């Protein structure tokens, strides 16, 4: 008799996607409405979350598009049950387009604009009343059993040290392999941290053109870094990585890429915050900066993030649970409030990698069924949109 397929308790959405959280998202279209959006979300926390950001105006071309695409992606995300779009009124980001995305996904949505509402106090009062009503409905929504093949797992590492490549990243890679074997998907970002390990990922591409795309994206990022006339070692590896024993970006990348699995096929390479549509492993074009990378991968549709760390880092995401694991026993003890899972036994021969991966897989399923992560308990809901050009 075969073992039952692992399932989690999630939220099935009208558009067919499945969420692991049921947030009310109060999304500011522009930095100018961010404070009001945060206040309204806070009135119904932790169901209510906001996306405070510094963009939405003063941007040209690709950056404006990235801002728009990212905010829209969050409005349609399956971890979001309802949306309030908080506009100012004169900004570049089009509030109605964000609202349309939520509406098409079958979510209740309101648009409130500070300039037409008549000031921040009236806007806050009106939006808070809406938020309370929406949050009460979201609270009553039941979870139902969902197959793990519905999951898109974002794999991420940050504050890496020598334990990341030896324990936590290979354990996470085994979870990605298992999830994909069960019909799910995984997404890996941080292009700069694939540099030096791209040959291993490209060799796993299902189609040659996918491997070629990966190499083109990596070449572009390397060229951008080199155009500054500097040694990338000023930032990659980061100073803490170097103190932790990592010497070059190649070494960091070879350890980091383990988290994308060992045998999962590379099925797609997509732009920042672009919708992930393929099973298997997708690589997303994100920077290495933790919050920008996680923001983009969740925008792409990942419902849950597993974030490995050696030195210990606290950051989360507004709408997706971020599970922190470490292979460093000292970090597990010294930053216990930030860490969800300790896999340091792998390096101390107290646990096999397969056993650590099995515990991590169970943790992912449990968190997807509603158990809060350390980032959620501590209220770490960082959000940052990738920017490549100056503010105009």
């Amino acid at each position: 008799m075969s073992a039952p397929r692992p399932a989690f308790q999630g939220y099935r959405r009208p558009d067919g996607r499945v969420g692991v959280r049921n947030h009310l998202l109060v999304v500011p279209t522009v930095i100018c409405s961010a404070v009001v959006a945060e206040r309204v979300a806070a009135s119904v926390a932790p169901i209510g979350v906001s996306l405070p950001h510094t963009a939405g105006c003063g941007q040209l071309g690709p950056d404006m598009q990235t801002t728009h695409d990212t905010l829209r992606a969050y409005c349609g995300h399956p971890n979001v049950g309802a949306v309030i779009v908080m506009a100012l009124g004169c900004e570049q980001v089009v509030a109605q387009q964000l609202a349309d995305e939520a509406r098409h996904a079958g979510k209740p949505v309101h648009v409130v604009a500070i300039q037409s509402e008549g000031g921040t106090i009236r806007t806050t009062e009106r939006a808070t009343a809406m938020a309370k009503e929406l949050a009460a409905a979201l609270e009553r929504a039941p979870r139902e059993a969902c197959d793990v093949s519905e999951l898109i797992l974002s794999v991420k590492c940050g504050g890496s040290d020598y334990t990341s490549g030896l324990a936590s990243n290979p354990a996470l890679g085994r979870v990605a392999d298992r999830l994909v074997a069960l019909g799910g998907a995984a997404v890996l970002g941080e292009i700069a941290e694939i540099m030096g390990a791209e040959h291993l990922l490209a060799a796993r591409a299902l189609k040659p053109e996918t491997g070629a795309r990966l190499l083109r994206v990596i070449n572009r990022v390397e060229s951008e870094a080199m155009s500054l006339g500097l040694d990338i070692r000023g930032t990659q590896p980061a100073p803490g990585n170097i103190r932790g024993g990592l010497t070059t970006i190649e070494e960091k990348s070879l350890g980091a890429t383990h988290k994308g699995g060992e045998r999962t096929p590379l099925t797609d390479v997509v732009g920042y915050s672009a919708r992930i549509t393929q099973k298997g492993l997708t690589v997303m074009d994100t920077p290495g900066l933790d919050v920008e990378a996680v923001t983009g991968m969740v925008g792409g549709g990942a419902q849950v993030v597993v974030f490995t760390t050696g030195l210990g880092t606290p950051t989360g995401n507004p709408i997706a649970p971020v599970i922190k694991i470490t292979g460093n026993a000292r970090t597990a003890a010294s930053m216990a409030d930030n860490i969800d899972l300790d896999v340091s036994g792998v390096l101390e021969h107290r646990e096999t990698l397969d056993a650590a991966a099995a515990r991590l897989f169970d943790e992912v399923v449990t968190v997807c069924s509603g158990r809060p992560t350390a980032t959620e308990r501590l209220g770490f809901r960082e959000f940052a949109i990738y920017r490549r050009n100056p503010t105009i």
Partner: protein
Amino acid sequence: MSAVIVISPADNVATALEAVEPGCVLADAGGVIACDAIPRGHKIALRPIPAGTAVVKYGSSIGTATVDIPPGAHVHTHNVASARGRGDLVAPPAPPAPPRLAEPPDNGSGA
């Protein structure tokens, strides 16, 4: 716990799982004798790595030795260079960014 770990048989470095003192004989790494202090998490050479050749970990190159590295030596930024993202080697420094705000003219005082 083992003092060091060798990840791939192709590797010419091992990773110290605990700090290694000079003179320590590393049974997990073919009996190499440490000639430097190796901090926890840092790398130690298993074989002679001549200048200009690849330092290999995870079975892949992680960079190039900048000096001849003897077995037992600490292998890190002081004797390994990355081959990637070296804008400092190929491009002239970027011109200074134009001023973001109007600045007063230089009065020649050097102030």
